[in-house]
């Protein structure tokens, strides 16, 4: 698709930074000057041994010497357009070969260029990168399901057994006299249970309670208890790698968190900003990244977009019921919350997960400690009840200044609010139903 191509070209700048981390993290220190020159100036569009936006740089020095001159290579790097305008045949050829897209002039001295090519020619073959993910990236199968299968299986066996017994009994009953049927095996079981009423009642009671407890555990997700929820995802994405080792900011990908109610699941073009260059991962190889390419309709061998896109069907993890209104920007921008407060330390996780409160509370920086399961209303309320809103100090926004001025008009309420020396979200209405339900 044209659009996607354009967008990617536009976003080349962040790529410089990204590529810095992504491509050469594993490189050994070699020809220090050349490497840093390469990273700072070239890596956005060039790879060493592979064609990218521009050609692979390995061997290019030789090619220039062969087809033009070493001197022209300096000129080319410093101002390619000038060289083209001056009518250098090789420069023109290169220009047209690479989609007539001029290479921007680079402010490099001849020495730096020499160092650059020395580095390029001598850079070792990619070795296994340091980026090694010890943990299995693939999300584990949701736990505890086997228990249910077992219970259901058992129930089925019982039902089938009972049914066959009943069928037999009927057959028998058809042949025998009526009163005999009444005291069939089932009847005797019933009679037995009745005689031992206390025992059977007790065990029955225990079983019922057990089923209820287990039912609650299993069904809690249905009533909005999602803590620990970590379903398989179509792509084995690793936050640990991206946010942890590569230190990419959360909002680089979840970029509407500061603008909208949705934090936003990164659109494929955001992935492509980096993955246009990074086609191979350290753990999963090309397999997982190929899924991004498939979604974006990108052919990694030709560097072309086919226009046939296929959105990724992620499994939504943080599910709030329909009747809850939640706004990320409210919490991130106005509330000034760190993502960690609610989402925990994602730099240690692979695919998205609803953190349990134990995990959230374990984070030292987290001001609010929870006692209710993550994403339940109690959990929200807890935070709103503890979180302070500063409306009194100098320099608060005019919005809160106005609120403060009004509050001063009602000494009684104000004093009541300040009993715990702080104004909480709840006191300014954060516990009111219509703040989240409408």
């Amino acid at each position, binding site marked *: 698709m044209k*659009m*996607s191509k354009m967008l990617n070209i536009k976003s080349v700048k962040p790529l410089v930074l990204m590529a810095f981390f992504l491509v050469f993290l594993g490189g050994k220190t070699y020809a220090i000057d050349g490497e840093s020159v390469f990273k700072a100036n070239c890596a956005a569009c060039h790879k060493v041994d592979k064609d990218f936006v521009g050609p692979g740089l390995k061997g290019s020095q030789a090619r220039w010497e062969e087809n033009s001159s070493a001197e022209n290579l300096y000129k080319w790097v410093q101002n390619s357009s000038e060289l083209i305008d001056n009518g250098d045949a090789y420069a023109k050829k290169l220009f047209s070969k690479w989609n007539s897209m001029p290479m921007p002039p680079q402010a490099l001295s001849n020495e730096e260029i020499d160092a650059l090519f020395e580095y390029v020619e001598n850079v070792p073959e990619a070795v296994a990168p340091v980026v090694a993910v010890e943990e299995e990236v693939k999300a584990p199968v949701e736990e505890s399901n086997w228990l249910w299968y077992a219970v259901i299986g058992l129930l089925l066996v019982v039902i089938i057994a009972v049914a066959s017994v009943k069928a037999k009994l009927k057959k028998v009953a058809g042949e025998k006299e009526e009163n005999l049927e009444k005291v069939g095996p089932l009847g005797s079981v019933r009679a037995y249970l009745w005689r031992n009423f206390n025992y059977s009642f007790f065990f029955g009671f225990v079983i019922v309670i057990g089923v209820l407890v287990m039912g609650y555990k299993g069904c809690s*997700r249905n009533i909005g208890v999602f803590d620990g929820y970590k379903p398989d995802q179509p792509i084995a994405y690793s936050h640990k790698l991206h946010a942890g080792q590569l230190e990419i900011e959360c909002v680089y990908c979840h970029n509407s968190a500061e603008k909208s109610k949705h934090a936003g699941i990164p659109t494929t073009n955001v992935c492509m900003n980096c993955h246009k260059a990074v086609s191979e991962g350290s753990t999963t190889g090309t397999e997982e990244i190929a899924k991004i390419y498939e979604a974006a309709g990108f052919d990694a061998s030709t560097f072309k977009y086919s226009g046939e896109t296929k959105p990724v*069907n*992620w*499994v939504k993890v943080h599910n709030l019921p329909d009747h809850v209104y939640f706004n990320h920007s409210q919490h991130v921008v*106005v509330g000034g919350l760190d993502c960690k407060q609610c989402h925990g330390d994602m730099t240690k996780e692979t695919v998205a997960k609803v953190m349990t409160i134990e995990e959230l509370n374990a984070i030292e920086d987290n001001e609010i400690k929870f006692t209710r399961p993550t994403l339940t209303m109690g959990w929200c309320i807890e935070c709103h009840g503890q979180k302070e809103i500063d409306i009194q100090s100098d320099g608060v926004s005019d919005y809160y200044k106005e609120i403060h001025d*009004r*509050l001063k008009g*009602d000494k009684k309420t104000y004093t009541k609010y300040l009993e715990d020396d702080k104004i909480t979200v709840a006191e300014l209405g954060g516990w009111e139903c219509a703040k989240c339900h409408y």
Partner: protein
Amino acid sequence: MGTNRKYWKGVEELNQTPEFLENSKKEFPEEVSVNEFLADEKLAEGSTGRRDFLKFLGFSVAAATLAACEAPVVKAVPYVVKPENVTPGMPTWYASTYYDGSSYASILVKTREGRPIYIKGNRDHGFENGAINPRISASVLSLYDSERLQSPTVDGEATSWSSFDASVSKELSSAASSGKKIVLLSGTEISPSTGLVINDFKAKFGGATESTTEMVDGVEVVTETSTGNVEHVQYDAVSFNGIRQANLESFGTASIPDYDFTKAKTIVSVGADFMNNWLLSGQFTNQYGQRRNPDGEWMSKYFHFESNMSISGSNADVRGMIKPSQTGEVLSILHKEITGSALAGVASTLDANVVAKVKDAANELKSHKGESLLICGSNDKSMQVVVNSINSALNNYSSTINLNNPINLFKSEDDKMSSLIKDMNAGKIGAIVMWNTNPVYTSAHAAAFKAGLEKVKTTVSISQFADETATNCKYVAAENNALESWNDFNPKGDAYAIAQPTIRPLFDTRSAAESLMTWSGASEYTGKDSSAYHDFIKATWEKYGYPTQTKYTSFKSYWSNAVHNSTENAIVKPATALEFKGDVKAAAKSMAAVKGGDFEVVTYTKSSIGDGKMASNPWLQEMPDSITKVTWDNYITMSPADMKVAGYSELLGQESPSSLATIVSGDTTFTLPVFPQPGQTPGTVGVALGYGRGENDEKIGRSAYQTGEYGAFLEGENGKRVAIGANAYPLLANGDFSVATITNANAEYNLACTQTHSTVMGRNSIIKETTLDIYKTQDAGVYNHQHTLHTGWNHDEKPIAEFNLWDEHPVENVGHRWGMSIDLNTCIGCSACLISCQSENNVPVVGKDEVRRGREMHWLRIDRYYASDIEPTIGTKGKEYAEEGFAGLQDASNDPKVVHMPMMCHHCNHAPCETVCPVAATSHSNEGLNMMSYNRCIGTRYCGNNCPYKVRRFNWFNYPSYRKFTEVNPAQDDLGRMVLNPDVVVRTRGVMEKCSLCVQKLQSTKLVAKKEGRAIVDGEISTACSEVCPTNAITVGDWNDTTSLVRKETTDKRAYQALEEIGIKPNVWYKVKVRNEENDALAELQTSHDSGHGDDSHGDTHEGTLETGHDSHDDAPAHH
């Protein structure tokens, strides 16, 4: 309160019928069968014993437990490439323009994730100041009508555009070469670019060109002349051609002038419903509203003479009831009084009281020469000539009427249309191409048109639906919805506007102009994303628009701004005095020839259905009519007195169906239910146009058809779906009105009317009304009586506001306090707010049967009260009240005053609903909102019972999935669901819901301010209802902001809180209606009372005893 008139909502309340009394005691109808909830009739057949029931119960609990353990997996699918202007979760607004052939407005379209979901008026640009009508607001739903044409069709078979275009172009070429005429038939076309497209079309198919060769001075000169056999005919369903013809005669220009109601101190309308559908009604309504402030420089005085009770008539200061045949007589009296010359030959049959009102009107007009306005709804040229003559004598052409800034809408060429029908039948037409018109339905001569169409070889319809006309055409070019297309408009004088698409076409459709361009070879159609017409408009604006201005220095910035604002506020040429050249004598002669009859039928268009274009829009069908409050139906409005004589049932209700009557006028016959309409001139009946759509089961949208009690379409005898109402367009053949005989069809029919749902139970204090004179000369206590309580040992009188039944909520100092003020003086009852609310808040459509049961879901209703000048006997209560209360009013039902009162949740600070909720599902916020947590609600409905305003709605069914609502509820359709507002939850069965004061909008406005680190600016807060009100009658804002407009409005001397006396402290205020009339009865009523006390018959009231004044409750104990 007792210092007031007596108000009633409908004839059944006036008559206090047993059904009415019975129902008025119940908040919710009780005839709800259990089977209905089980939603399966078969279950009723099997009997279930107690033991079986327990077994079932046990099994279902177990099954449900097991089933529930399947944790739902929700998918989240992001864009592959996010569009630049979309942020998921954030709305994007586009300025655009709405024009459908009759309504015009500059609009703002709200889109979410690329879907248009809401339309409101554009208050920053355009000459209507953001005024829109309910149809414009509801049009966003029509975009998602799944019965729209999804591709072009030939003989009803879907085809591709390439083959379609090839055939059409070929046929048009052959028609052109055959020498027969090619006719382009459309509604009034006000697009300059489409005009040029039509010129290109004409150039292409102009037909054979004749060339003559002459020898002039030895040089061969070839002259080519086109035979011009392509003709563009414009035709409107409801024609205003009379005004154009009259202006041609009077002033030499066939135009419709612009009217300026802001300059008119006296407005006299003879049958022109200018607040509803008369010309640029949005603009007029807004202008009218600007001059209805009794504290303003001056307040206009408005006389209205009409037969039906129209929206405009219901708002008039003085309303006179005339028969349509007496229109001429009214004009004649006005003419005589103002110009001094009588109109010879016009009969005088008017009642003395009407004549007196007309003379009053004439005097008022005379005393405001150059500051007055006379308008007339007639489409008869001679009437309009007389109107012009009077306005000319009043010097109005240099002020209130501007012929230099003509309105370009309604260019219907009635003569051309009738000759077209003749030509078609004579076989003279080779091809016809139609768009934005539906003559097979709307033409008064539809049968002849249809017959003629069969004789035309090539018939092409460009249409969104396979409607009445399209199904009679061979080629149907599927058209875009307006929200999917580019267009430009020139609605008036030098005003130009742009419509921009807000969504990519949903189906394989294209705009009418693009179709014409393709056929004339001006462009090649490349599919949905074709920008041919867009480029054409741009070129037009570059060529003609850009050079005329100096503001922008590059076309790019000019064009971007034009699209961004959708319109520029054009410089208006001032009105200049004109010399009247009309022939009044001839007009008088023609007026004298108008003959009335025993029953005169007057057709009108409703504010909801309009001319019928959007008859398949369920929001509009379910919108209670502004006057009758009937939903989902067409009916005959008749004076209750006439009904009594003819023996029709005057009562409405679930158990009291209406009588059917048959109207016969010439060849036209149809049967409709009769509705008792107070204020209808005896001897006349009113029938709305726009109904009876799709009588042959055309695919025009599901909601145009009748549905049964358990859902599903009703089937007619022919096995086809049954249209709602009857088509009254054939009556237009008779001119302004038709003389008819009306006979009792001796059958019954159920109407779904909301007028007496949620009755006031006799609490007349809910409305306060006075006259301008009293308002100007008396203390506020006279017309805005303060309720007081006597307290303490010496019975001190204190205002009710000082008493609290419960602890007060700290709303007055803590943060915000959202308040609303509604000015009854400017509320005209148009119901735009109701539709806007429905659109913003996902209010479900419930269908006719449910409305009949009193289960409509509208969060905002507009109560329409009829008033009489006579007060109920003081102190009468209960039964006495019921029997005697209205006894003196029998005559009032014939000519009542009308008050429109929007009613929604009042967000009481001492809300009665909150205290009775057993689960605290409804509670109060420190911002003054009465909050509803749907998920906590268990549906006891106590709150509804306890609400004094009757504004709570119970969700009886699962509207988005239950089969009863499949045909009516758009949320049951994958496409219709797109219109839902994702920020507001779709409520489920078994919960109460109500107006939330658009809390989602309040919250988002607050959030924007917080994010920007600034205080909320007054005027920033709006609700769905306030932002579409054409007269700005609704003001919302932060009451705690002492400088806010809402604070000012609510502390005004006209401000009062409805039912304040019961101590509930609402956050909604009304402002007393001030009528600019002389009303001795009301004056006496209000001034005779000891102000502030109001009630002498009560004697001593005691400590803490609420003085209820004249409030009466059917079942209230008489006295304390």
